[in-house]
């Protein structure tokens, strides 16, 4: 849940995080654009879910990203 709020801030552009992972940066950028075009709660929830799915899939190599995002 704590990470959810960080993901939300990231998607809304309220905080910045630059990853060393190209795919992660492209995803954050796409989700920010998606939310910018439709700032509904439904879209926000789907964006958060996409980030969760991404980090779950790449959990082995995403530990540092998640650690840094948790500090935001």
């Amino acid at each position, binding site marked *: 849940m704590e990470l959810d709020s960080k993901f939300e801030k990231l998607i809304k552009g309220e905080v910045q995080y630059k*990853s060393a992972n190209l*795919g992660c940066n*492209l995803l954050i950028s796409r989700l920010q654009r998606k939310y910018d*075009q439709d700032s509904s709660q439904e879209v926000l929830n789907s964006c958060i879910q996409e980030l969760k799915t991404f980090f779950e899939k790449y959990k082995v190599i995403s530990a540092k990203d998640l650690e840094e995002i948790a500090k935001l």
Partner: protein
Amino acid sequence: MFISLEETKKLIAEGRLLHIAGEEKLMEQLPRGNWIGGTTPYFITEDGGITSSDKLYVNEIDFAADFKAAIYDKDNIMNITKDAYQNGVTLLILPFASEVAVDFSKEAPNSEELLLTPIVGWISGFNLETGGTAKAYNGTMGAGYNNKAVALHIGLPDNKFASIGIINIFKYNENSDKIEFFEDSLSVEKCLVNGREVNFEEYITKNNIDTKLPLISDYNSVLVNISIKSVSKENHTVELYAPVFAGREYRFANPVEDYHDSFVKCLKDAGSSNPFFSCNCILNYLYGDFEGKPTKPYAGPVTFGEVAYQLLNQTLVYAEIIE
């Protein structure tokens, strides 16, 4: 490795899993086997850039736990993620100016599935002086296509992961004009410059903008280039090598004093890497005069577009395997 036709045939006969780039007349002579490939006569080898119709650039994929080759057309190219391995990497080759390449360039950046699958690859081309046909080959079927994309889906062992990176020498000035477009498109008439609607061709002409410089958009610190293909003063249109997207901000890149020096600096900044595949853009090769100049540790085909999840321009793309 940059090797002869006979040496390449030998590797195929040995059953090696290969990615191969070369001119069409050589590619057409390759036997069936475990390989995919595409056409280009331009390469940046370990010894530097070269135009060759005698040798092929071959990458051996010696880390695969499993693999499968697949072909895609414009109607099913976005199914590429469904065919990929859960833990893997996909090498994709799309023929220049084909419908499947255009469709991929427009759809990939909006795909919800794409970033869950490492996809790296290139747009195949031909000799710009003599002409030719851009093709992608599925060696497992012994077939070449000018209207279909070919992918090699590579499954990785559980302890290995694919990592994709790019090297882009271009930067932009935050204070330069902000350009926005009304729709996702490869051909542009109107745009907004600092919020004011103008004709894009007239803006370029009036401001004497060097069209060797790409448009750049910032994707969360990743600078993505869009190269200018042509400017028509007659039709007042601008054609692009990759689409611009509505809702994104673009700026023209700053001029680059020395292409090769800039690349060398970027390569140093990028740190160490052990790529199993890399490719670089034909526009970098031509504008930067890369003949005889290496970009170590990156070597491979010189291409008509680069794929790192989505289509890029004027960029070096690479993939490596990490444990």
